[in-house]
């Protein structure tokens, strides 16, 4: 062997350079910081986020807003309504003057009035946000909770546990969901489980939506857990003597937060639509509590005299769902390690 090598310099290159090398530039920021920077540059997603925040504020501040800019959501203004057609009069002093094509939108009633009883649309939309968001958020929370716990358990333990949970997911996915939800909302009687009225109905809605949508999150979490489980840090934790619970909730869960967050943001709009669809089909909240889906379902009757009554709740749903989708898309892109910029 003729290797001309008796390199004495080997010590020189050891520590210092390697030390700084790793702690450089972009690597120094955590994924969350990177994501935040990306998000900040994603104007559209940011707009979505701002709308979402506004919507939440609107829902929370509904009483204040309707006091400031509208009328109580259940107050009638029939003096402004044409008794013959139920539409909103252009000029209440002149009943012969015909209907207002804008449905009474004015500085007084920002979004006009409901036909027939003349309730203030602005207040009802604002209050409607409460139910829509409450149901959507709570249902999402429930999905996420069930989905995460079962998904992580299925993914981590594998074997028959996984088989059982995965089959359960298949079963849930195999139900004609919407049908089933309506049917279930129908068979649950009034006043059950210690609840009644709208409390029960909201509870039932949340339960149904949450309970039947969990497999979507569950699948994602399971998939992620499966890949995470293969990572050596899980074995490392085990070899340090960590219990399963520790591994599941202290080691794996933090890694799942991001996908869960992202998919929750994308699940919320689905749930909003779902709630609206249920309300539309008549298994929603009791009147006079306003919900968007309920308003929309009642509005069809008046599309000739009061087109705004169809459009406004529709747009409210649309804008909300769009905003959540935009934000969700943005979050997903921002957290995507593959996206280059």
């Amino acid at each position: 062997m003729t290797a001309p090598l008796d390199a004495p310099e080997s010590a020189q290159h050891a520590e210092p350079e390697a030390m700084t090398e790793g702690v450089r530039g972009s690597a120094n920021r955590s994924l969350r910081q990177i994501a935040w920077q990306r998000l900040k540059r994603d104007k559209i997603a940011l707009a979505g986020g701002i709308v979402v925040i506004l919507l939440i504020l609107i829902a929370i501040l509904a009483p204040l807003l309707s006091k400031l800019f509208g009328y109580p959501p259940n107050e009638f203004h029939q003096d402004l309504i044409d008794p013959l057609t139920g539409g909103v009069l252009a000029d209440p002093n002149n009943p012969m003057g015909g209907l207002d094509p804008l449905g009474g939108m004015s500085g007084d009633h920002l979004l006009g009035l409901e036909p027939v009883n003349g309730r203030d649309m602005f207040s009802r939309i604002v209050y409607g946000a409460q139910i829509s968001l409450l149901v959507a958020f709570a249902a999402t929370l429930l999905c996420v909770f069930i989905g995460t716990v079962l998904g992580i358990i299925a993914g981590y333990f594998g074997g028959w546990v996984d088989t059982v949970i995965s089959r359960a997911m298949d079963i849930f996915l195999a139900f004609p969901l919407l049908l089933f939800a309506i049917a279930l909302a129908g068979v649950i009687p009034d006043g059950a489980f210690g609840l009644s009225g709208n409390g029960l109905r909201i509870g039932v809605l949340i339960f149904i939506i949450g309970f039947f949508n969990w497999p979507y999150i569950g699948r994602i979490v399971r998939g992620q857990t499966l890949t995470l489980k293969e990572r050596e840090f899980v074995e490392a934790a085990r070899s340090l003597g960590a219990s399963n619970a520790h591994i599941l909730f202290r080691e794996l869960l933090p890694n799942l937060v991001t996908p869960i967050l992202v998919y929750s943001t994308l699940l919320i709009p689905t749930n909003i639509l779902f709630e609206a669809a249920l309300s539309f089909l008549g298994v929603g909240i009791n009147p006079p509590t306003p919900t968007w889906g309920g308003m929309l379902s009642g509005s069809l009757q008046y599309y000739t005299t009061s087109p705004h009554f169809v459009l406004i709740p529709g747009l409210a749903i649309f804008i909300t769902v769009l905003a959540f989708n935009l934000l969700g898309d943005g979050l997903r892109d921002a957290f995507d390690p593959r996206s280059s910029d």
Partner: protein
Amino acid sequence: GGDGGGDGGGGGSADVAYDQGTTEIVNPSDQQGGTLRYAISADFDSPDPGNTYYGFSWNFSRYYARTLLAYNSEPGEAATELVPDLAVDLPESNDDGTEWTVEIKEGLTYEDGSEIVAEDIKYAIARSNFGDQALPNGPKYFSDLLADSDDYEGPYANASDPLAGFGGVETPDDHTLVFHLSKPFSEFPYILIQPQTAPVPAEADTGEQYQSHVLSSGPYKFDGDYEPGSHLNLVRNEEWDPESDPVRPALPDRVTVELGVEQNEIDQRLVNGELDVDLGGTGLGPAMKGQVVTDDSQKPYLDNPPTGALRYFNVNTVVEPLDDLACRQAIMYAADHEAIQRAWGGEIGGEIPTQIMPPQLPGADDSIDLYPSEDNQGDADKAREKLEECGEDDGFSTGLGVRGDRPTEVAAAEALQQSLSEVGIDINIEQYPSDTFTNTQAGSPDFVHDNEMGLSVYGWIPDWPSGYGFMSKIVDGDSIVDAGNSNISELDDPEINELFDQVVETEDPAERSEIYSQIDRLVMENAAILPGVFEKSVTYRPENLTNVYFHAGYAMYDYMALGTTNE
């Protein structure tokens, strides 16, 4: 779609006028032929004449089911007079009104050519009223009224002789029926116009499934089977003898019914001339109504007849604190009738009543006005007084049940809720599906009590045009039942109950009218029913529909009279 004959307005309007059909025959004609097209957004409860309680179904079933008696086929007040149909003449009663005898015409046949005999009518009454397998939908007047039938278990209990033990109806020969009543009932002939008296031969009966193909005794027969949710088509029944029939001109050659068509769609097609009649008879939906009532070219095609219905709120007399009369009266005073009327469609949707009997009924007295208020908008001061009187100075709260799939009723509920809130009465609206409402929720006193459903939105149409036909089910204390209850107020006033017992024995119609007025007043005094509107519908009468007039007995167009200029 708006793709067919869209020139519904304009030129032709010279000879027709707004609301003309309510009082007279529009486009009189005796021209036969064509297809008469019906559609409805809902469905029959059943087209089986023995198993139906819907007004339109009673009206429509006459196409293929002749009954013992019928309403007179004329516009105006004469419509509620009775004429014989299968019967040779109006029934005769014995002195105390407990035995009624009817002869039926000879030589009448079903669509298959077999003869219609008295026993078939008896059988039809048996299957629809008796035994635990009695057809579920129709009224049960016969089982209430007929004597000697308590032990009869219905036609299915005894396979060889279905009518064994059914003593309430006697058929001394093939063309005579004798009804034995357990108590006098002066309005019994009205019961005999009900479709339950249409003959059904025992061998043809297939229980609830008889609806698929009813054996016709009328001018039309089923063309194919009845398909629930889809369609029912009729064609001429050649076995029908026009000479024997005083009420059915039978103009069209074919009759079609489309089921489950969206209301907006029906209205649109009516206006476009793609459809002739909205079978439900409840009139245009708000969308089209809003459009046409303001359109002068369309207005002549509209009628605005009363539907015969009272739309009202039950004020329960048992649920606290409404068990206190003053509390109920507070509600009567506080209600804003104008707002409630608007919910039901404003002036064209109905008139504001002050009593419960619709004005068309004999004995209706609009001078009863116990809870007056300025502009009908409610009298809050009086209401507060009454609240104090019943010891609920700050108001109280109670539930209000409503059929969630009926937007106008929901709107009415909201309107009442709104006006009551002004005197501190707090209403929690609960929605229920209309299909279960009458049986299991509002119709179940237990449910009403458990859920403190002090109020509920309801409507009532007389089974026949009399005070008894209208009120007995909803205010007679004796008609309170555990399920399917219609006296939802649970009004059990001895005085009223007594008057009902008295009226069925009274033979003189004028005297009866007098008693009905008394009952009406008592109900209002009891504040058990808060009347909403005497409903009116806005119906569209397409240009090519002939012989159209509003029939007071069914409170819709007389379907038997209708003809068409369609192909």
